[in-house]
């Protein structure tokens, strides 16, 4: 278990991490999310003693990282797959890393096989793709078979097969009882692998908890209905206290009523339904909503099509006018 308490790190006048506290539990994959410049990487570097924190403590199963003599056996970390000398072979990169903690060459070959790099192990790293470097980095993480795994953007540069592979590896490691903390900007990937989330913005904690809890808190749910009589049924829904938005020729997006209420109304009124489904915003929507106030870099909504990537564009469901915003700020 990782326990972070009051972590604070300042670069000159910039407060990169501000009194940050959270826990990462064993047996679960914890996604570490935040907008660009929110302090994720700085937090991870502070956790490993690479950046000197101004205040606060980080403990791994009750121990300070800096007190570990052979941390590869306890905490495996990959902060950047680019931290390799390009003129050194992948195998030799792992050899020096393994030697620091007395890990033998046999284990180096084992982890190379595990990440599928055996055939290119003796090739210089400058010839590796970014995806291969990510695999090499993960091999380094696994050298000591550690109980805690920390990865910063491990999906960068990986092809779809590679992303799926690393997702499966991390879930597998967590199911073995290890503590897994992984940051990523690929929210769809985090949604697929993470059990818990830690979301930060401008160095401060925004939310910590289960993924489902986060989505419940920051996303909108609505009911989608398709019926041959959309106008008549919509009027019934409005009279029942719901709000609606037309969706296509025969669709209605209903807010303010549960799927059970909508279904019962249709049954009572003898309305034919072609579809009745509950809709929920994605983790991405929830993330953008949760971090809308702490985005350091955002596109200009008036700047054209690219602005659809900004939080404002994704923040609202079809009937945003009837949407009651979730509570803002840290939980």
């Amino acid at each position, binding site marked *: 278990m990782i326990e972070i308490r009051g972590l604070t790190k300042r670069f000159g006048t910039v407060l990169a991490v501000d009194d940050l506290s959270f826990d990462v539990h064993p047996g679960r994959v914890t996604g570490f999310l935040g907008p660009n410049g929110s302090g994720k990487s700085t937090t991870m*570097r502070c956790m490993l003693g690479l950046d*000197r924190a101004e205040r606060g403590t980080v403990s791994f199963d009750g121990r300070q990282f800096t007190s570990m003599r052979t941390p590869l056996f306890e905490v495996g970390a990959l*902060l950047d797959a680019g*931290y*390799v*000398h390009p003129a050194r072979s992948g195998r030799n990169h792992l*050899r020096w890393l393994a030697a620091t*903690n*007395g890990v033998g060459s046999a284990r180096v070959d084992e982890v190379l096989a595990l990440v599928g790099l055996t055939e290119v192990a003796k090739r210089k790293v400058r010839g590796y793709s970014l995806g291969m470097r990510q695999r090499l980095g993960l091999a380094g993480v696994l050298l000591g078979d550690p109980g805690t795994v920390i990865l910063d953007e491990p999906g960068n540069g990986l092809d779809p097969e590679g992303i799926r592979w690393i997702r499966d590896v991390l879930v597998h490691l967590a199911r073995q009882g290890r503590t897994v903390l992984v940051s990523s900007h690929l929210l769809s990937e985090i949604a697929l692998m993470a059990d818990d989330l830690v979301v930060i913005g401008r160095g401060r904690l925004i939310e910590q908890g289960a993924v489902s809890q986060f989505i419940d808190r920051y996303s909108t749910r609505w009911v989608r209905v398709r019926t041959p009589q959309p106008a008549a049924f919509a009027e019934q829904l409005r009279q029942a206290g719901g709000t609606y938005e037309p969706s296509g020729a025969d669709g209605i997006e209903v807010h303010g009523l549960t799927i059970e209420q909508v279904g019962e109304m249709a049954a009572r009124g003898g309305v034919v339904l072609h579809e009745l489904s509950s809709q929920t915003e994605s983790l991405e929507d929830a993330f953008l909503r949760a971090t809308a106030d702490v985005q350091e870099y955002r596109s200009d909504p008036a700047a054209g099509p690219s602005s659809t990537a900004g939080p404002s564009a994704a923040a609202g469901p079809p009937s945003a006018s009837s949407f009651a915003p979730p509570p803002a700020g840290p939980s």
Partner: protein
Amino acid sequence: MIAAIRSEWIKVSTITVTWVLVVVAVAFPLVVTILTAALADDLDRGDLADVLAGTTLVSAMLLGVVACLSITNEFSHGTIRPTFAALPDRWRPLSAKLIVQVAIALVLAALIVGVGWVVGAAITSRPTSLDDGAGAALVGVVVLAVGLALLGYGLGLLIRNSAAAICVLLLWPLIGEGIIAGLLTVIGADSAVRFLPYSAGFNMAVSEPDPDSFGRVAGGIYFFVWVAAIVAAGLVRTHRRDA
């Protein structure tokens, strides 16, 4: 510490540029010394040692470059971070790297001087001798090689950039001190020239030290005090700062 030393040895020995520099450092003085011994027929008794010490000085600088690159490469390629993440007590990897670089410089410089002298003396038809400071110069150039390796290591820690650190390492003794010495002479402060660190240390590697200098031993100590200060400053900075 043994594990850290082993790791640092793997690092330095698995980079091609290390071997290129080492081959040049070893070959240059040996080739020049052996050719001199074989072809020159006007060698005096101490000349062979002077040639060997003089050419080994070039090797010493190259070994300083090896030491410098061993640390600047860590910063430029980011490998200092996984190094410190694997050995959180930063003194261990930093000390291990220092030990490895000193050992490389010491062993190779001693090897060059030993082989160069034995082979050169066997080849030449002229009389050779280690008397009159010649032997001391050969020992001195080995010590100077260790000092330059330490200097390269310290400059690497302080400057972190390979090109800049190597420039300072090589241009300081080759050009910088020469210019400063010239300026001191022009303004009539000749006596201050002895305080130039490399010039002081250089007296270790010559059979007849400059009479105006601190001399062989004192000059060497003075040089090493400077080197120690630079290494200490680099170590403290690296230990305190973010990696």
